[in-house]
């Protein structure tokens, strides 16, 4: 980590208009709400949360695939909306979750991996071919696979292809949306090891979107926990895992099933209802499921407390409880 901020979100929000019927007004779905994040060069940031918490929307905005409806995203100091589409693609690249649907089944590996080079008009045919071979070696794919189709590959090999394609433009930042959740555990380990190696060799900055907290702890320097569009806790991975502050983070960590036969299932679980994002609960959006909810939680939104590199949004820490009591 160099201290150089390479990607920054300032108050980023995204609202979708959801059609609810021919004669009723569209409803507003706030998928991402007021997110502040800064990524330093060479760092690995993990974004965690349940499905529907807005983590994929945030990742899409960081990729420049979706403009934010409020706030700004800065890539290497420049607002993403002012940067040319091709230039963003040279700096930020995605690796998607499902290597079965993110590769064109009718193209060979050579043309899949070379596509970014073709699109950006980089090099001559021979140079591109050489670069493709280089990339395949980098991600551990034997060159005899150059002219095979994705359907002939295993899941792990396909994810290697997706990573090679992402690296073709020598990006500074790679955003991986659930990079291993479609893979078997032994293959997951191969891909995680590969990402670690690449990060070191190529000085990459990684954003890993995941719901697997064991993977997050293993890979990330910093972690941001999202709930209903907001980051409710963030900080250095080691300290968040050692001392989670937000009750939601605590629950998530308890729900991790480590392969420990001396322990049973985690006792403490959330109520079933992930709230409807079209109709978020008032006050703290987590209060209906929170085991430590207080009266203040259903009326007022907790303040965002920042302290060094960490952040937490919960009435347990912002003094609301003390004020009520006092």
């Amino acid at each position, binding site marked *: 980590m160099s201290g150089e901020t390479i990607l920054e979100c300032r108050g980023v929000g995204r609202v979708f208009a959801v059609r609810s019927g021919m004669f009723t007004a569209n409803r507003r779905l706030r998928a991402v709400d007021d997110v502040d994040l800064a990524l330093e060069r060479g760092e690995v940031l993990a974004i965690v949360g349940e499905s529907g918490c807005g983590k994929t929307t945030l990742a899409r905005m960081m990729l420049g695939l979706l403009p934010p409806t409020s706030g700004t995203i800065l890539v290497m100091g420049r607002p993403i909306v002012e940067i040319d589409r091709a230039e963003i693609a040279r700096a930020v690249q995605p690796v998607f979750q499902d290597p079965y649907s993110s590769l064109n089944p009718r193209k060979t590996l050579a043309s899949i991996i070379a596509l970014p080079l073709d699109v950006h008009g980089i090099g001559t045919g021979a140079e591109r071919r050489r670069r493709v071979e280089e990339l395949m070696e980098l991600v551990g794919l034997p060159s005899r696979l150059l002219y095979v189709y994705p359907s002939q590959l295993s899941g792990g090999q396909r994810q290697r292809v997706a990573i090679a394609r992402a690296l073709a433009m020598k990006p500074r930042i790679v955003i991986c949306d659930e990079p291993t959740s479609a893979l*078997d555990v032994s293959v997951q380990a191969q891909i995680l090891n590969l990402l670690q190696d690449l990060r070191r060799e190529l000085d990459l900055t990684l954003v890993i979107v995941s719901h697997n907290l*064991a993977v997050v*702890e*293993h890979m990330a320097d910093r972690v941001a926990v999202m709930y209903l569009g907001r980051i409710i806790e963030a900080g250095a991975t080691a300290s968040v895992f050692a001392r989670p502050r937000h009750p939601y983070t605590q629950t998530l960590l308890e*729900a991790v099933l480590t392969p*420990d036969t001396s322990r049973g299932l985690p006792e403490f679980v959330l109520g*079933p209802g992930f709230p409807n994002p079209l109709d978020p609960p008032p006050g703290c959006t987590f209060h209906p499921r929170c085991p430590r909810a207080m009266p203040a939680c259903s009326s007022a939104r907790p303040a965002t407390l920042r302290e060094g590199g960490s952040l937490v949004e919960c009435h347990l820490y912002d003094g609301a409880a003390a004020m009520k009591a006092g």
Partner: protein
Amino acid sequence: MLQVEGLTVEIDVPAGILHAVSDVDLHVDQGETLCIVGESGCGKTMTALALMGLLPRRARMRAERLELEGRDLVAAGRQQLAALRGDRIAMIFQDPMTSLNPVYTIGNQMEEIYLRHGKGSRKEARERAEYLLAKVGIAAPRSRREQYPHQLSGGLRQRVMIAMTLMCEPIVIIADEPTTALDVTIQAQVLHLLSDLQKEYRMALVLITHDLGVVARMADRVMVMYAGQVVETGAVEDVFAAPMHPYTKGLLDCIPVPGKTQPGAKLGAIPGMVPSLVGALEGCQFRGRCAYALPACAASPVPLRERGPGRASRCLLDSIPNAPATGPFFAGVAR
């Protein structure tokens, strides 16, 4: 409850015969949880489908013994199997979105099982459905009963699936990756529900999963499968504490564990990939990926050896050495 010996499933494919399941023995008792663990293509789902009599038509099944509550299923015809399915043995599928019928209400689908097996009247079926929906923690079961699967979240759908399997009070439940499609927080709830219901109804549970965390917390006994074969079996504490097969050890080493593995350190990966199951099987199926492989591993099929009470391993080694002796014997088998 359920006794299986020598279960073999073969599928004809253009290139030859695919050995999906080879000579699997398993048994599960009342109130017991057996976890079958392994990676995609190891035959765990095919084993489950064979037990349910739901194999695809082009698959051929053989078994020396297949008994449910002492009833012989090998000799049973399709109709007899269909009569047991849903009644005495029931299955929970991985993806509740595709395994529920989208054009029928939940109540309709639940009651159908009850009526089909002639358990009682429509009114009783409705009451039982409502009772079970409440039992699996669904609020307002009466109105939920009228809803269609798409109106429910993933966690609720899986609860409905579980309630549905309980309609006729089966004695064996086979759950194939019941929580893989769910969020972690919901996963814990669904597993809790399954284990509570199992205790209450004293059912035998066969839980199929690739998640070793789930195995550790749920299983009494575990059966590790690789390439269609059982490679190791035993009580879950024993297998996790001292794996006897290099594949089991590899699986345990390759998952990051918070508080145990060093963040950022290399995970123990199993190099290579699963061998093709088409054609004649030779030697140990795992030898191409095994760090301890010996020339003898290629010579002849490795038998599943008894290694203590209830414990068996399909490996020539008596113990796994601390350091790989030779490196992968077939190092060139691609990665």
